[in-house]
């Protein structure tokens, strides 16, 4: 079955620490990959997306993600986190078989950054 897996459900980091959140998917064929962020009490906002080309994608707020096709992975990274990065992060995948260009989301990773 098609699925999106986020390995870490809860992550706690100190400010200035480096971040890497894992995302793996089980879809075959062409995929579009996304990371969304949800700050407390807010709606989902797009951090970055990958459709084709350079597998290293840079997004907003210093985030980047690397698409590794052979590993079916799209991990999110940030070299130095800030307190304001405290949020929930969702990986999402859209494959050619998704009707209506719908997204399949992972279960999310809750990130807490402590001062």
């Amino acid at each position, binding site marked *: 079955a098609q699925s999106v897996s986020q390995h870490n459900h809860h992550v706690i980091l100190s400010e200035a620490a480096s971040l890497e959140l894992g995302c793996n998917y089980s879809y075959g064929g062409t995929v579009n990959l996304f990371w969304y962020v949800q700050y407390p009490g807010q709606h989902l906002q797009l951090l970055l997306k990958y459709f084709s080309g350079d597998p290293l994608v840079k997004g907003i707020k210093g985030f980047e993600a690397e698409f590794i096709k052979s590993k079916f992975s799209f991990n999110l990274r940030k070299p130095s986190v800030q307190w304001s990065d405290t949020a929930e992060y969702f990986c999402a995948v859209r494959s050619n078989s998704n*009707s209506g260009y*719908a997204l399949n989301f992972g279960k999310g990773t809750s990130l807490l950054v402590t001062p």
Partner: protein
Amino acid sequence: NAGVTQTPKFRVLKTGQSMTLLCAQDMNHEYMYWYRQDPGMGLRLIHYSVGEGTTAKGEVPDGYNVSRLKKQNFLLGLESAAPSQTSVYFCASGEGGLQPQHFGDGTRLSIL
């Protein structure tokens, strides 16, 4: 530019009551979606629409109905609310193709 607007933002219902959640977008998007978000479950697709007058089932459609009578509006209905439908509901819209989806602020629904 309002983007995607959901009403209401909060609602408490009793089991068996019915209600309609409204989603409106002003970006002229063809595609609209309703998701529910539950703790530890991420977002799951309830129904979606690929254009005015069309709707289709998503991953968790049971207990919900939708309508897309106008391109800018996508309504989600609960005919007979159940406690299992307590959730946060998000509407999204998009142009399809290679474009990402834009999300509304959510509706927090509690069913007692």
